[in-house]
C-alpha cells in the first residue's frame, strides 16, 4: 500500500477566496468526458490536456496548473466551448487562467504575458494598435535576441510592402486612458 508520505500530490480543500474559485464555478458541471481534449488543435503541444487541466482546477491544484503551459497554448478557437456537452464556457475559463497568470506576472508565461501587455499598452496609448511600435516593444521586452530574429525576414517584407509604417506613431490617436483607468478601478477590490 502506498503511504501518504511518498505521494507527490496532496489535496487541500479549496477556499472560496482562492483565485481559482470563479473558474471552478465555471466548470463545476464537468464530467471529464474529454471532448475538450479531443477537440483542441493545440493539445499535441500541451503538457496537460485540457481535460486534465480542468481536473486540476476542480481539485484546486493551483501550483500544478500554473506550472503547466496548457492554458497559454489556447488559441481561442472555441471548439471546446462549442462542443462541451455540459455547455461550459471553456475558452473563457482558459482566458480567466491567462488573466490570473498575467495578474501574477508569472515567469512561465513571459512571452504571452509580454506580448499581450505590450499590445494593450499600445492600445491604451493610441486607441489603435501600431504594429511596429508594439512589436519593437515586445522584442525589447522579451530580452531574447533570437525572438526578433525569427521575425526579421517577415518584418522586412512587411515594411517593403508598406504595410507597417516605419513611423512609430499612428495617424489618428484616441487614447483610452480613461477607460483603462475606470476598468482598473472597477476591478480593484475596495
Amino acid at each position, binding site marked *: *500500500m*502506498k503511504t*501518504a508520505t511518498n*505521494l*507527490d*500530490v*496532496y*489535496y487541500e*480543500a479549496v477556499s472560496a477566496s482562492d483565485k481559482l474559485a470563479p473558474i*471552478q464555478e465555471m466548470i*463545476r*458541471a*464537468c*464530467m*471529464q*468526458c*474529454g*471532448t475538450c*481534449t*479531443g*477537440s483542441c488543435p493545440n*493539445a*499535441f503541444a500541451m503538457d*496537460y*490536456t485540457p*481535460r*486534465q487541466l480542468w*481536473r*486540476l482546477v*476542480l*481539485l484546486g491544484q493551483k501550483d500544478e496548473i500554473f506550472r503547466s503551459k496548457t492554458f497559454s497554448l489556447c488559441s481561442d478557437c472555441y471548439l471546446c466551448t*462549442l*462542443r*462541451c*456537452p*455540459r*455547455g461550459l464556457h471553456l475558452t473563457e475559463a482558459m482566458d480567466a487562467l491567462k488573466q490570473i497568470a498575467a495578474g501574477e506576472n508569472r515567469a512561465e508565461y513571459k512571452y504571452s504575458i509580454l506580448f499581450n501587455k505590450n499590445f494593450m499598452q499600445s492600445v491604451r496609448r493610441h486607441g489603435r494598435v501600431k504594429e511596429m511600435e508594439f512589436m519593437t516593444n515586445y522584442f525589447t521586452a522579451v530580452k531574447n535576441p533570437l525572438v526578433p530574429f525569427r521575425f526579421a525576414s517577415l518584418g522586412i517584407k512587411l515594411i517593403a510592402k508598406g504595410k507597417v509604417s516605419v513611423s512609430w506613431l499612428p495617424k489618428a490617436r484616441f487614447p483610452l486612458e480613461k477607460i483603462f483607468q475606470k476598468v482598473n478601478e472597477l476591478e480593484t477590490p475596495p
Partner: protein
Amino acid sequence: MARKIGKALVVGAGIAGIRAALDLAESGYGVILIDKSPHIGGILSQLDYQFPTDHCGMCKMLPLVDRDASSQYCLRKGLFHENIDITLSTELVSIKGEPGQFQVMLKEHPNWVTSDLCTGCGECVDACPIEVPDEFNSGLGTRKAIYLPIPHAIPNPYVIDYTVCTRCGACEEMCPTGAIKIPEKARGDFRILVVDDELIVRDSLKEWLAEEGFAVDMAASGQEAIEQLSQQTYQLMLLDLKMPEMDGVEVLQKTIDEFPDLDVVMMTAYATVETAVEAMKIGALDYLVKPFDPETLIPMVKRLYQERAASEGRQIEVGAVVLCGGTAFFDPASGKNTFGYGIFPNVVTHLEFERLLSGTGPYHGQLVRLGDGQALQKIAWIQCVGSRDLQLEADYCSNICCMAAIKQALVAKQKARGNLDTTIFYMDMRTFGKSFERYRQQAEAKHGVRLKRARIHTVDRHAACGDLILRGVDLAGQSSEERFDMVVLTVGQRPIGGANDLSELAGIELNSLGFAQTEAFSLTRSSRSGIELGGSFTGLKDISDSVVQASAAALNASRILHAAGGSLALKSSSFIPSTDVLREVPRILVIVCTCGVRLPAAVDTQKVIEQLTADPLVDGVDFVEQTCTAAGWEHLEKRVAESKPNRILIGSCLPYVYKRKIKDLGQRIGLNPSLIDVVDLASEYQKHVLEKEPKEFITQNVTSKLEMGIARLKWIEPSAPPDIPVIQRALVIGGGVAGMTAALAIADHGFQVDLVEQNDRLGGNLNWLERTLDGHQPTELLQQTRTSVEKHPQIQVHTQTRVVRSTGEVGHFQTTITDAQNTEQTLDHAVTILATGGREAATSAYGYGTSPVIVTQKELEEKLSNQPLDATQLHSIAMIQCVDSREEPRNYCSRVCCANALKHALHLKEINPDIQIYILYRDMMTYGFDESYYTRARKANVIFIQYQFTEKPQVMANQESVRVTVIDSIINRPIQIEADLLVLATGIIPNLPTQLAETFGASVDEDGFFQEADSKWRPVDSLKEGVFACGLAHSPRNIAESITTAEAAAQRTLRILGHERLSAGKVVANVHHSLCSLCERCIDACPYRARSIDMDQDRVLVNPAMCQGCGSCAAICPNGASVLEGFLEQQMLEMIDAAIG
C-alpha cells in the same frame, strides 16, 4: 351469475401496451387497444435481438392459462385475444369524464385496403408509382405508397400511406380481390380561403391549389375574410400574418371560436416567425414561412385535407386508460451534426443498425458497408448521442443505450463469425439492471468487445477510402485516431412529437423534459386519476422494466375498474353445447374457395373432387366463389345446412380471418368449432402460379393440402379443455413496502390475502429510509401503507411468522406457517408472492469496523435522521461506491447506491454548503432522469473521482478521521483526501433463502435473487406458475421501482385469482399410464415444470394449467405414453402421409 365487465382503453400497442392489454384481458376485462401506427409491436417490431439473451422471446408474454382465448404464435406477428379489440391507425382525440366512466373520443384513419380481402399478393406494390423512405427500415430503404408496415405481421394487409398517395388508382385496378377502394371524395369539396393583402401571393396560391383540384377563394383583407367565412363553409384558411388594418392574429382571434372546424395555417415572413408561433398557441394549426414554393405548400395542404377526409371519429366508454405513448429518439442530423449523420453513408443510428442486423432488414442481415457493399470489419459505437448533453437540453440518461450497444456488438460479432472488431466509446457504462454487469464483462473478456471510456465528438471521413475517422482521447490523455468502416450512433430518447398535445387532451402533466410525469413513489400513476402510464412515455426503458411497469399500470387501471363496479369477471364456460359427434363416423364436407377465377385457372378442380371423394369419410367437395365475402359465406352456410356434416374443412386463405366466423357458424349449427378447420391454399398455389409450375403439380399440391386437413379433422376429438379449481386467496411473504403494496392491490380486488412477515412490524427497509433523491417522504409512505394494510378487512397480517413448508400448485397451494409461539397454521391459497426483501450488504472492505468514522450508506442515513451526526460540524466526507460490488462473487450493480450517494451529498450540502464531499466511483449509475441530480451535485461542488477497478482506493483511519488515497483516472495520480467520515456503498443483498424459494417451486439466481421465468418477458413470474416475486427479493431497486414490481406481481396473480376455475388450453399433454415406463424423461424435458411423479400411485401427473402444450414431453417419450391432445400420433402420421402424397 351477474357479470359486470369493466372496459379499459390501452393507448399504444408497443410492448408495454400489449402487456397491459393482455394483463387486463386475462383478468377478464374488455380492452380496446389502439395504436396510431398501422401495426402492433411498436419499436420492438424493428428489433430482432434483445439482450441479455440476444434473441427475441416476445411470445413468452402470451397467456399461460386459458391460452385458447388468444393466439398462440409469434407475438411479433400478431395478437388475437377474445377480450381485446385492436384498432390500428387510430389516435386519441379526447378523454372526458371521471375515473370509472371516461368518454373517450378516438380518431380512426380508415384503411383504403379491406384487410379481410387482402391476400398479401403484393401486385398493388408493383403498380404503385410512388416511392418514399421506408420507416420500418429506419429509412435505409424505400417503400411504395401502398406497402406492408412490417413484413412479418399476421394478418398483414397492405396499407396506403394517404399522405403520399396520389390516388392514381393503379393499385385499385391491379388488386385481384378488389380489396382496395380509394374513396372518391373530390378535393373540390375541400374549400380553402386564401387571405393575403398581396395580390401576387393570392394569385399564385390560387393557381397552385386549383391545379391540385381544391376549391379556392381569396380575400384581400381580414375584414373581407371574415365576411366570406360567414357566407361559405371553409375547411382551411391560409392566413397572412402581416396585413394592414386587421392583421392575421386579429383575424384568427375573431374566427377561431366561431368556426371551430376551420383549420388555419399562418403565412409569415422570416422576421415574424415568433408571432406565428404565438398564433399557433391561439389555435392556428401550423405556419408557412414566406417565400414558400408549391413543394412546401401542397404537401401540407394535402396532409390537412387527407386527415380531414380520412378520419372518422368514434366515441367509446371505458373505466380506465393506460397510456403508453412511446418515445422518440434524438435525430443526430439536427443541430450541429458533427458525426456526419446523413452525410456519410456509414454513420447510422443504433436503430438503423438494428435493421442492418435483421434478416428482414434492407440487407437481409448481411453486415456490409453501405455504399460499396464490402463486409464490415470495424464498427464503432458512440454512446450518449443526444443524451447527457446539456447543450442539447438533455440532462438525462436514456437508460438502455449502454446495453443496446453491447448487445449489438455481440450480435454483430456473432453474425460476422468473429471477423469483426467492435469498439464502444462511452462515458459511464450503465449496467445497472439484473445480470447486465456480467453481460458486459463477458462481452469484453470472452467476446472481445472493446469498451473505451471516451466521448467522441466528431466523425470525419477519409476522402479516398471512405473510412470513418474517430478522434478521441483516452483516459491517459493520449489523443488517438482510429478508422472504422461504420459508426453507430447510440441516440438518446426524446419526447414523442405531439407529447404536449397528448398531455393536453388526456389532461396529464409532463415533466420539464417533455416526458409524462408520474406521481410520487409510482411509475405508472399520472396526474389524472384513472389514467395510468406505461412504457417509454415516462422515459425510455428496457423490455423488462417496461413489462413490469405495464403490468403495474394494468393493476392500477384494474383497481379503478373494480372500484367503479366493473369487478373482475367470473368467466362462465365458453364451451358451446353441441351435438355429440364423438360416436359418429366422420362425415367431412370440404368447401374450397375459388378466389374468383384464380383457383380454377390454376387447378384441375374435377381431379381434386375425384381424389378427395375417394375417401369414404369425405361427404362432399364443393367450390364456392370467395368465402371471404358475405355472399360466399352465405353460400357455404347453405351448403352446410343441406348436407349436415359433422366436420367441415374450408380451403381458402388466411385462416385467422375465419376464427370468429367459425365460432358463429359452429354455434348456429351446433357443431363444436374445433371440428371446423381452415387450410391455407392460396398462399402456396399462388406462389406456384407465379413460378409457372405445371397444372398437374399445382393440382396435386392443393389436393394434398386438403387431404392433410381431412386427416387432421378425422382424428379430432372435441372435448372440453381441462380446468382446475382455484382457491381464491393469496399468500404474500414479506411485509416490506413491496409485500404490503402487493397485498393491498390484491385485497382491493376483493380477494383474501395472508401477509406473512418475520419481524414484529411491517415496513422493512422503509423503517430506516428517511428521504429519496427526488425529495419524497418514505416515512409518510410507510405510515399510509401500513395503516391501509392493517385496516384492510381482506388482509390478515401474520407478524413474527415464518413459512415452514408448502405443497401444491397454482390454484391450490397449502402452506404451513409458524408464529413466535411455534403455533402452526396451514393456509390454502391459489398464488404466492415472494416479497421477502433485501438488505444492505455487510462488508469488511476499506477498514470498515475498525473506526467509527467508517460507515455504510444506511448507517449514514440513520445517523442523519436520528441526528447523532451534526453535519454542520463536518468538513469533509468521502464516499466510496461499488464496495464489494460489480466483482465476483457479488458481480452485479445494486442500482440504488449512486442515487443514494447523491441524495446524501446534496442533503449534506444543503445543511452545510462548506462540506467538501468526494464521491469515488467506477461508473456513475445515475440512469434516467436521476442524471440531473448528478449534474446538480457536480454543480454543488461535490467532487467526483473515478477510480479503476484494478486500483481501488486505499484507506487509513484512526478513531477521528480517515485518509483516503485514490488514483484519479484523469490525471492518473494519487489524490489524498482527509475526511471526517467515509461512507461505503455496499450494495443490496436479497433476503430470499434458496430453501424458501424452492419450497414454492421457484428458484434463485446465482446472486441469490429470485430467478424469473424470463428476465425480459416474464420478469416477476417464476417458472412455476402461480409463484411471483417483487421488491428487493427480485432485484435491487429503489422504492418506486420496488412498488412497481409489487403492483406487477399483484396483477399477475389477479389473472388467476379472478377465476373460480382455471381453464387450460385445448392442447395439453396427457399420460397414457398403461404405456408409461416411468422413465421420467418427460419430467426433465418439461420446460414449465408442469409434470411430477405421484409416488403413491407410481404415475406421472400433468398439471393442465401449467402445461403449455409445447410437446417436449411427447417428443421425448419413446412409446407415446405421453400424448399431446390434438396431436395424436395416428393423426400426425396420416397428415404426413397426405403431405408427401
